């Protein structure tokens, strides 16, 4: 097929405002919104120091008030006495030492009597209070994030305490080998539960936008069918009446569509990487490769639907949009949990969902060292592309139509 027809088709596609908007502009807007939303979200979710009260065991009130002021960070960081380490005031020390970040403590602790603590909680000056002792008790008023953090902290502490006791019973030597350091020095409590997870989820959304852009190629594939089939458009009738091999012209036009589409994906990728500074990791070539495969699969999928669903063009367009949105939804574009749910409960659905294959391949690049999972996804995607190629081939071979 002549190069001229290819370039003419490229020209056509690049001048089609609708296609350009949805493929070139819209994903950029979407990712920008996501970026802005996330940075705002991050600001809100930045953890604040939590105000709590600590009631030292009633019998030792006087003593512990003193002790409370005397408890220092050093003490918490490394206790030197077994008694202190597992004793009931140790929780207080640990809580005092816990940090959200370098210069931010996790808890702002007021030492007081249980009466005062009840008052403070009632007034809302504190979020929780703890009555110390062998089995510290936690009192909260509402159920919120901060309350949950305090509770998890205390629970976790108790857990560890039991562990230490058990270890010491069976192996008293352990204490000298930094056991307490290992177990109680858990100042990165929040870090573990939160900081790592957050960027993960966000990058999944960027992956989802990339994957959606890839699968949007299905619209372009469908347009190529509408453009060439006599029963789909007047242009199609004119082309069908001309002395060109439809198979070859279609291949040429699909190539043009593919060219224009992958440019949009690559531009989006560059925008995310260099303008939004999304941390995609080092394996960019793999990432781009999966995008190229995804775009091809999308294009051919759209073509197959175009050839084999016997409906008016407008209905086919609606089907394609619904289908690609559905795939994106199931792959966790709106909420990552859906992706996990589908993968767990309906693994087959996850394996035949091209958007999921794309995001999963990207995801596996980010999280796993090996490339096995990546290649499984890539192979499945290419397999789908092959199936759709065959479907398109037989679609176009049907030559003439029952009606126009």
């Amino acid at each position, binding site marked *: 097929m*002549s190069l*001229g*027809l290819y370039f*003419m088709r490229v*020209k*056509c*596609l690049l*001048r*089609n405002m609708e296609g350009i908007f949805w493929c070139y502009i819209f994903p950029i807007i979407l990712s920008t919104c996501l970026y802005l939303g996330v940075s705002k979200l991050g600001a809100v979710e930045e953890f604040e120091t939590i105000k709590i009260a600590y009631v030292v065991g009633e019998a030792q009130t006087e003593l512990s008030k003193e002790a409370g002021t005397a408890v220092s960070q050093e003490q918490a960081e490394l206790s030197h006495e077994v008694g202190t380490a597992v004793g009931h005031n140790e929780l207080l020390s640990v809580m005092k030492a816990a940090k959200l970040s370098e210069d931010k403590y996790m808890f702002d602790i007021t030492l007081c009597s249980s009466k005062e603590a009840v008052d403070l909680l009632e007034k809302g000056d504190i979020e929780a209070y703890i009555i110390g002792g062998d089995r510290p008790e936690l009192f909260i008023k509402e159920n919120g994030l901060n309350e949950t953090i305090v509770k998890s902290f205390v629970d976790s502490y108790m857990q560890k305490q039991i562990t230490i006791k058990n270890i010491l019973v069976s192996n008293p030597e352990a204490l000298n080998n930094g056991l307490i350091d290992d177990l109680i020095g858990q100042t990165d409590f929040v870090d573990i539960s939160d900081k790592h997870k957050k960027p993960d989820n966000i990058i999944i959304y960027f992956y989802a936008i990339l994957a959606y852009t890839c699968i949007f190629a299905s619209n372009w594939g469908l347009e190529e069918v509408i453009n060439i089939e*006599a*029963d789909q*458009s*007047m*242009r199609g*009738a*004119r*082309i*069908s*009446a*001309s*002395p*060109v*091999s439809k198979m070859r*012209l279609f291949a040429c036009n699909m190539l043009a569509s593919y060219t224009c589409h992958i440019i949009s994906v690559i531009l989006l990728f560059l925008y995310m990487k260099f303008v939004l500074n999304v941390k995609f990791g080092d394996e960019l070539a793999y990432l781009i490769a999966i995008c190229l495969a995804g775009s091809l699969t999308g294009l051919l999928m759209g073509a197959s639907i175009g050839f084999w669903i016997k409906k008016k063009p407008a209905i086919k367009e609606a089907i394609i949009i619904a289908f690609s949105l559905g795939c994106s939804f199931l792959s966790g574009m709106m909420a990552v949990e859906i992706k996990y749910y589908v993968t767990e409960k309906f693994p087959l659905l996850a394996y035949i969902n091209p958007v999921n294959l794309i995001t999963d391949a990207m995801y596996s690049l980010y999280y796993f060292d090996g490339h096995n999972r990546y290649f499984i996804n890539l192979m499945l995607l290419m397999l789908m592309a092959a199936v759709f190629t065959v479907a398109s081939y037989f679609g176009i071979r049907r*030559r*003439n*139509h*029952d*009606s*126009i």
Partner: protein
Amino acid sequence: MLVNVKGLVKRYDKLVALDYLDLQVEEGEIFGLLGPNGSGKTTAINCILSLIRYDKGSIEIFGKPMKPNAYDIKRNIGIIMQNVAVFEELTVYENIYYFCSLYIKDKIEVKRLTREAIEFVSMEDYADFYPKKLSGGLLRRLNIACGIAHKPKLIILDEPTVAVDPQSRNKILEGIKKLNAEGATIIYTSHYMEEVEQICSKIAIIDKGRVIAQGTKEELKAMISLGEKITMELYELPEKNINELKEFPGIYSVEYHENLLEIKSAKGRNNLIHILDYMAKNNIIFGKVYTELPTLNDVFLEITGKELRD
């Protein structure tokens, strides 16, 4: 014979769109396919071009059977569909260039032909316009230019003048005549009898997917009994006189309503003189008088019992 369609049958479920349609088009003709909306003209064209499947019949073009991949036949056909078929994203020039390059490989030749086609439809000033900036008439002319740029031997036009202003319409009809004069054979479908009468050298009238009459316009008019239609303005005409007029030789229909007397007579001479003579003798005062020769509408009316345009 350039186009030979025999016994073409096309059904859409229960609806028979083409009912053993026969068409023979000779080289050099402007062949008119005249029929009301829904009579099967477009369906016939789509079958001839192998765009749709048909149930029965055979189609030969340039003496060879027409098939979807009969590229050597298609190369010499130009089509202008009843709806405009162009790319919105391409300019006038690019559209013509694109469609022409589907037929001709040589780039320089395509460029030359594109220029010629633009000139042919007098759209030099609009070469860089996008289709959505063009008026209906100009759009039709672009549609035609896209179909004829490659200088086909056979040009098929399906109602190219629907929704076109009179000026553009005349330009289009002139253009078709010119293409024919340059050697192209033309198949022209329309439901406007005036157009068909004006340009076609041979006409097939179709109704319900069947050819009901075929020939030159003179032959078609000779087929029917009507020879002349005489209309008179009259303020009063007693029943008695109407009945007497009906007795005249050659006159087979006399109708009087809303002050108009319409008399249809068979072919023959002096019909008008006899009638005027009768009016004078009976002291019937009349206003304007005019006579008309039969039109293709009358042919259609007489054969099918209904008007061409509903």
